[in-house]
């Protein structure tokens, strides 16, 4: 009896990996996640992308994913595993998967790889990222207007250009909205650790901060702000609307779904090729989550106008005159930052205090 059930299960497993109704093998799509799919932030949004791919293609695709994969040797195994299982395209959704992705891609030249937020590409490895800093400018504006104490806090993850860009963009636009604004940054060295994020939020709040921005993925800072009362936060990577209308007053949402659908379709059509994608508000990869009524109507209108101006290209987030922290000139009057400078940004702009850990 036992043995029969065992064989039946094995048989069912073989059948499940069979062919689709129209006789075509389904395209297999794999995702490697750095956090749990329930993080409510970064990984959650990537998983929404997976679900959108499923929705779009139905039984023409077969999706698989692995969550909370450490960035290193384990990631390499997770990717190899998916490639062995016959994945046609694998999305590796964290910066730390860069070298593992390149290594595995070398061994499986027929499998397409897509690495998020990295800079190494190969014939079968594309990279993609979102211009989160565009959303940060909008957040910065709201933050500058909302703060009563003129103190803004920022929970930063790792000192990589992506994060530094976000800090600079928020600070720059907060300062434009409110010249008295000061910003303190706490580095937590994690993308997702509710305990550390909550500690950081509490430390900021105790120091008089009443607007907390974050580049980490959990809703712990929102919970800490709700507990403290009167502290404004923003959803990061995901809408985090369970904390709306307050303390979460708006959010940056990463909408990966259109990109993922696009790339999976390219694999199906045989038109996939290696490229680098860096999209912002205009194509919809970065969305500004609903600005709640906790924000005064005029501030909300200004924030939406700023969003639209960035989308239309009328406003560039980093436009000179702009100095670096040490006072040296970065952008001359009217000059805008080019993508190369943004991609490698490793300095604070003038007015920010503290050092980038180094």
């Amino acid at each position, binding site marked *: 009896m036992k043995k029969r*059930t*065992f064989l039946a*299960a*094995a048989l*069912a*497993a073989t059948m499940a990996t069979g062919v689709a109704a129209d006789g075509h093998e389904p395209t297999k799509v*794999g995702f490697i996640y750095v956090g*749990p*799919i329930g993080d409510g932030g970064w990984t959650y949004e990537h998983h929404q992308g997976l679900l959108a791919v499923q929705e779009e293609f139905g039984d023409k695709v077969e999706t*698989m*994913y*692995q*969550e*909370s994969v*450490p*960035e*290193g*040797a*384990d990631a*390499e*195994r*997770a990717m*190899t*595993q*998916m490639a*062995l*299982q016959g994945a046609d395209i694998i999305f590796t959704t964290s*910066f*730390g998967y860069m*070298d593992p992705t390149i*290594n595995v891609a070398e061994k499986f030249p027929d499998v397409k790889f897509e690495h998020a937020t990295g*800079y190494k590409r190969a014939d079968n490895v594309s990279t993609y990222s979102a211009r989160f800093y565009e959303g940060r400018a909008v957040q910065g504006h709201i933050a500058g207007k909302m703060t009563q104490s003129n103190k803004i806090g920022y929970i930063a993850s*790792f*000192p*990589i*250009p992506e994060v530094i860009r976000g800090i600079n963009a928020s600070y720059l636009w907060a300062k434009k909205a409110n010249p008295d604004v000061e910003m303190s940054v706490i580095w937590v*060295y994690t993308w997702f650790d509710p305990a550390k994020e909550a500690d950081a939020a509490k430390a900021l709040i105790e120091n008089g901060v009443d607007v907390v921005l974050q580049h980490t993925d959990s809703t712990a800072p929102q919970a800490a702000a709700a507990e403290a009362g009167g502290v404004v936060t923003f959803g990061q990577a995901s809408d985090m609307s369970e904390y709306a209308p307050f303390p979460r007053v708006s959010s940056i949402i990463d909408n990966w779904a259109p990109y993922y659908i696009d790339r999976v379709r390219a694999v199906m059509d045989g038109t996939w090729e290696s490229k680098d994608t860096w999209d912002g508000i205009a194509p919809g990869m970065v969305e500004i989550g609903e600005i709640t009524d906790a924000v005064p109507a005029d501030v909300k209108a200004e924030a939406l106008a700023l969003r639209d101006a960035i989308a239309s290209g009328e406003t560039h987030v980093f436009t000179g005159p702009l100095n670096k922290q040490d006072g040296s000139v970065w952008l001359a009057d009217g000059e805008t930052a080019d993508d190369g400078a943004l*991609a*490698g*940004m*490793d300095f604070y702009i003038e007015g920010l205090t503290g050092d980038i*850990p*180094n």
Partner: protein
Amino acid sequence: MIRLEKRAAPSRIWAYLTPVVAVLATMVAGGALFALLGTDPWQAIRTIFWDPIFGEFAFYYRGQLLVKAGPLILIAVGLALGFKAGIWNIGAEGQYIIGAICGAAVGLAFYPMEARWLIFPLMVIAGAIGGFLWAMIPGILRTRFNTNEILVSLLLVYVAEQILAWMALGPLRNPEGAGFPGSRNLRNYESAANTELFAGTGMHWGVVAALIAVIFAYILLSRHLTGFHIRLTGESPRAARFAGVNPTRLVLFCLGVSGALAGLAGLFEVAGPSGQISIDFNVGYGFTAIIVAFLGRLHPVGILLAGLLMALTYIGGEAAQATLGLPAAAIQAFQGMLLFFLLGFDVLTNFRVRFGARAAA
């Protein structure tokens, strides 16, 4: 009524049987958990325990088993020496990190010189010394100031993690890495790479070192005076003192050896499977090795088997996530059950279960 009665002497049969019973109980309870999650428990257990060794892609997984088990065994063997003597090094994770940093730093210092015969051995030595010195901190604090080595070694893990982040962002950062954290990839630097000895087998120098450590630990414990001292101290510290055991030397020896082995494990990992010093380089081998040491009954051969079993649950667990869609948390709960049942059934080694009321005395 059920009650426990202390055995006069620990049961030898149960000492060997508990790990097996614990694994079986984990399969049953884990299977029930998977069934509740809507996954066929037979298929889940098969994916975790059978497929990596005998399944379609076993050619790849078998090698990965060694890659994953190597550092676990290497660290656990060292820890077991101390645990046997009642010396609790809980901070192997920190020693692992420092060993990796020291070894990698030596390798990177020579970049791009080509001299494998010189650079790689120097890295191995640096890795062992790094782990050794990091373990000497709790060692000396314990022997000098009678501090608790459990606390000191554990807290030093967090210090080591901060040093790791600093190294990845600062001194060891790849100068050609566009400002991103993380060192050069040692695997791309031939003189420093801990490559597979036979392509596709997963067998690298760290696995070899783990096997050698198992053999040495076995000889030490069964044939050598130090091994006798370790066992004696663990069983009866008072008797050990009468027998002329120097407790200071024993503490330093056990912590030093376990630190050096953990440092070696870190070095082999950073030069091989992982490839680079990054902020998230450590993934918990030092802590998991504590479970492995106990699962292997603190016996070197037992640890060898326990390390392979633990690696199997990791690799099979990952496969179950990807192919069956089981959540990562379910796999972690499954691994947790293993330790839980082991400790639970361990009671039977020292106690006898009696049914019925206590007989009138």
